[in-house]
């Protein structure tokens, strides 16, 4: 039964130590009923361990896991109202697809005819009607993925946990499955808790996202919150391209020497160096260090005259590859609305290497 008074999942002071390693270091989260909630972070940030503690596969070293207000910290997986979709799908190889999907109903004592009916219905729900008699080995990766999803959904859990379920799929299929997952979640109305290291995936699918680093939650918010108003340099670096300016370079542009960021697509690149700035606009000149033509858009990496480096992203509405290549080494003017400058504060933390323009 859905209990409106309590969040679907509530984590209080969750910690998990494996020997000397602290995998999860004090996590507090509340996940609302019916929400598509993502836990985003680099590998080793503790997001999967948190998921496993919610699922009942790991026992927390400290802290409490509540499902619908009920303390389930020490309960076995089969005693809690959650289901997990595993990264490798974990289908039962000896059973056909229908028996796989019906498994949860079978162990709950649902009759043979009824569970076959519900399994077929669930398979139709993930667009796999008619696949019931096949063996998992005869399915493609995307189809296995959907069987795993149907198998978990058929028992109507209060919360569905998904552990990087799209990780093993190729890019095209992954994008298609992202859309489908989101649609399925809307249809069934079950709370989804989704673990991923792919920031784009988290942004496109989620109602809210928790960004993990080193066993802690850096920020929780809507995708727009994280992208437009990152709370820490780590979040700015991990979600999207960071474009960080620090120290003197930041001081000259923004007035203080904290960490500042401007998203690449907010920056306008112009060859007219003397253009007069509009009100509320910030402008700086620099030299184009690198131009990367990427079909729909072009990335400019610009060394600023005031120090520091920014990446700017321009839609290729009027230009093509031959136009932009000439710009390498030339002087350009970068401008953006003052409100698009993000002040991240003076945290000493370094963003993930490879995310800042070089």
């Amino acid at each position: 039964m859905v209990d409106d008074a309590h969040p679907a999942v509530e984590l209080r002071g969750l910690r998990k130590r494996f020997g000397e390693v602290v995998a999860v270091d004090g996590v507090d989260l509340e996940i609302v009923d019916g929400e598509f909630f993502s836990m985003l972070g680099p590998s080793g940030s503790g997001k999967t361990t948190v998921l496993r503690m919610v699922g009942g596969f790991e026992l927390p070293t400290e802290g409490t896991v509540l499902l619908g207000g009920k303390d389930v910290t020490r309960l076995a997986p089969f005693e809690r109202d959650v289901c997990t979709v595993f990264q490798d799908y974990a289908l039962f190889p000896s059973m056909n697809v229908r028996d796989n999907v019906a498994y949860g109903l079978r162990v709950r004592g649902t009759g043979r005819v009824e569970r076959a009916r519900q399994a077929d219905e669930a398979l139709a729900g993930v667009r796999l009607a008619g696949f019931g008699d096949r063996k998992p080995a005869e399915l493609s990766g995307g189809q296995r993925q959907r069987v795993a999803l149907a198998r978990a959904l058929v028992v109507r859990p209060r919360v569905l946990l998904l552990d990087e379920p799209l990780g093993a799929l190729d890019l095209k299929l992954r994008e298609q499955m992202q859309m489908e997952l989101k649609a399925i979640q809307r249809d069934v109305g079950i709370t989804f808790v989704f673990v991923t290291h792919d920031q784009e995936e988290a942004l496109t699918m989620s109602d809210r996202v928790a960004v993990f680093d080193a066993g802690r939650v850096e920020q929780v918010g809507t995708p727009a919150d994280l992208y437009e108003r990152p709370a820490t340099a780590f979040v700015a670096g991990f979600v999207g391209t960071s474009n960080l300016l620090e120290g003197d370079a930041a001081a000259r542009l923004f007035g203080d020497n904290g960490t500042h960021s401007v998203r690449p697509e907010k920056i306008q690149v112009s060859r007219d160096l003397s253009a007069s700035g509009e009100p509320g606009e910030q402008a700086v000149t620099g030299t184009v260090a690198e131009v990367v033509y990427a079909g729909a858009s072009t990335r400019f990496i610009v060394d600023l005259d005031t120090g520091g480096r920014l990446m700017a992203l321009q839609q290729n509405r009027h230009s093509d590859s031959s136009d932009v290549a000439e710009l390498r080494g030339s002087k350009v003017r970068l401008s953006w609305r003052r409100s698009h400058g993000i002040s991240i504060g003076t945290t000493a933390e370094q963003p993930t290497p490879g995310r800042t323009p070089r």
Partner: protein
Amino acid sequence: MWLPRPLTWALRCAVGLTLAFIYVPLLVVVLNAFNPDRVSTWPPSGFTLDWWREALTNQGALDATLVSVQVALCATALALALGTLASFALQRYAFFGRDAVSLLVILPIALPGIVTGLSLNAAFTAMLGLDLGFLTIVVAHATFCIVVVFNNVIARLRRLGETAEAASMDLGATRFTTFRLVTFPALRSALLAGGLLAFALSFDEIIVTTFTAGAGTETLPIWILNNLTRPNNAPVVNVVGTCLIVFSILPIYLSQKLSGTASGGRF
């Protein structure tokens, strides 16, 4: 790969000769089972089924066969239970001395049979004060039968991983239901392959058996050894030998088929 023609033929001959060296002697036993002469002659002087009739009424051979089958069944059952438990313990749990235990479990198959036989004989009689007989043979056979079951099951467990079982419990199944519906079906063909191998190993074992059988109990291989040199029974031995060839090839063939299909990705 392309090879010069003469080399190809030379290699083919080498393979042919090697296989012939192994299998022609077996063929001689089979031929002699139908040879009217009491002593092995070449070429056979005719064709007869007399020895088969004689073998079917030979009480010693029949008793020994029964003992061998019973021993093999008991040793296999024991090996299946213990080998499976050992493989679960060594695959699923990390504990101090795991590698050492793993080695100790596998070692009996590598130990010379004569050493195993001697030491078990000493242990049974001197240390435990047991009378040698059916029970001691079963225990002795189980020591090396466990290994083949263990090897088969642990290989399957490694490939199976633990997520299928985790998924089962996640979907609401208890540990026991998970074993019954998920783990056991996945292990079934590995258990069958290991069991068949164990049965075959036990059925034709002679060295360890000699040391642990005592005076009253005779397994089929020991009966053969005892009767080989008696002119009256030699033809019957050939008949029994022919049967044994068939019965030992069959389980090996089946177990290969089973592990073959299993490694093809289907359980």
